[in-house]
């Protein structure tokens, strides 16, 4: 379980608070969608989940470990995977298989285990056969799937994704969403920043942020019932209230 307690964050000491007292919990195997207008602090929030950012006040706990505690840093980074918005600046390897092997290599796993994970994770995202491809020549959708495979290879319990469907064509988008929706069933909790309200439909829980605060939380049906509130912060409500 990830527990966020009264999290406050600002980028510079004199700057205004970006996160203004956020508390939430993320259960194991849950699928949480995070929505909110641009600049409301969604990305800042998820970067706290694996200690890329540390709270100015408040605390974040991952399976009982505090992110501010440097001794648990490595374990926290392994437990909470992060898929960034731009896959281009997340892919480190020259070839597909080497990129997936980057994380397990950092964990110091033996070569045979790295090979097993690379094969498993590429299969999980449907990229078997592309092992030797130069990462530069992949399509946008394939890059996104590769960055997901690279995170899966760490064997995480949670994966936070920052707008994983941005800039993708409908088919690629569907592939990414299918994988994201499958993972909670395999025991990996998903925290998913979404812009398109239709992407939220598969989530167990929707969190709505505005101006550094949590505005609403609940099942998609519960959240989309507050159409007026959502519209007032610049979000549109999907037709049919987000029901499938």
């Amino acid at each position, binding site marked *: 379980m990830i527990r966020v307690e009264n999290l406050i964050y600002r980028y510079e000491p004199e700057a205004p608070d970006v996160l203004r007292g956020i508390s939430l919990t993320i259960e194991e195997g849950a699928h949480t969608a995070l929505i909110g207008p641009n600049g409301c602090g969604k990305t800042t929030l998820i970067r706290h989940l*694996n200690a*890329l950012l540390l709270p100015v006040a408040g605390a974040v706990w991952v399976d009982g470990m505090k992110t501010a505690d440097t001794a648990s840093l*490595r374990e926290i*980074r*392994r437990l909470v*995977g*992060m898929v*960034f918005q*731009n896959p*281009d*600046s*997340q*892919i*480190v*390897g*020259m*070839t597909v*298989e*080497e990129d997936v*092997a*980057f*994380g*397990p*290599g*950092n*964990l*110091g*796993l*033996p*070569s045979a285990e*790295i*090979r097993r994970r*690379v094969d498993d994770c590429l299969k999980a995202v449907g990229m078997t056969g592309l092992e*030797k491809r130069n*990462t*530069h020549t992949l399509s946008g959708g394939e890059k996104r799937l590769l960055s997901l495979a*690279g*995170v899966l290879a*760490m064997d995480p319990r949670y994966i936070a994704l920052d707008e994983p469907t941005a800039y993708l064509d409908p088919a690629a988008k569907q592939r990414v969403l299918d994988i994201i929706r499958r993972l909670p069933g395999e025991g990996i909790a998903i925290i998913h920043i979404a812009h398109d309200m239709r992407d939220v439909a598969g989530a167990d829980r929707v969190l709505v942020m505005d101006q550094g605060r949590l505005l609403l939380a609940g099942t998609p049906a519960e959240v989309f019932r507050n159409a007026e509130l959502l519209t007032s912060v610049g979000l549109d409500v999907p037709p049919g209230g987000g029901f499938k």
Partner: protein
Amino acid sequence: MIKLGQYLPGDTIVHRLDPRVKIASVVALSLLILGATTPESALVSIFLAAVVLSARLSLAQVAAALRPIVFFMALLFFVHLLFTGGKPLLSLAPLPLMITREGLAQGISVTWQFAGLVLGGAILTMTTLPSDLVAGIERLLRPLAKVGVPSQEIALMVAMALRFMPMILEEYERIRMAQMARGADFRTGSLSQRVRAVAMLAVPLLLAAFRRADELALAMEARGYRRGPRTQLRELKLAGRDLAALAVMAAFALMLFGTRAVS
């Protein structure tokens, strides 16, 4: 894209050799080339030709690898041809220059050496995946880790530089287009105007590169990177063919030295 010595996928014995063996062979060959006498250089040429053949590289591919240096080869040749003293073959009056027998010999020899060195390196990079090359360099440097050379960090840095080069080229192209769309002109105008226009590209390009480096550092941290030992997908292992190749290389070097001792 840069075509110089770009990797050409293949499945020949040369492609399959351990990168360390190939790197060591290129170093050894380079030394032989630099120290070669005339009969030796013929032998080395035959050896290089044999490697090119067994790697199934076409003449066109070899020529493409050498094309970027043709100008320098010509320059080297003419400098040695025209400025070496000795027995005159041909006087270029009224110019105060003449072609000598020694100049001709030296020009040919130096040009051959230059071409040989570049070809050796090109065969290496054309038959070895960049990632294997980096792994090979890393493994060769690893003994130096004991004296504080961070071989794994160096290897990772080289690999990432190779990984991001095409991206930075793309970024350059994008910024150039964006500036042209807003009226920047890189093709006409005086030299100083054009230099200034290109300099205007450098600033946004550098800024973009720094921003990308920032994001990359964050992404690497998120995937558990920290300095210190890490493991690899593939640990290089010498196979029978690698030992055979090393033996061939050693035998060739010894043969050259042997002929030298006899003559």
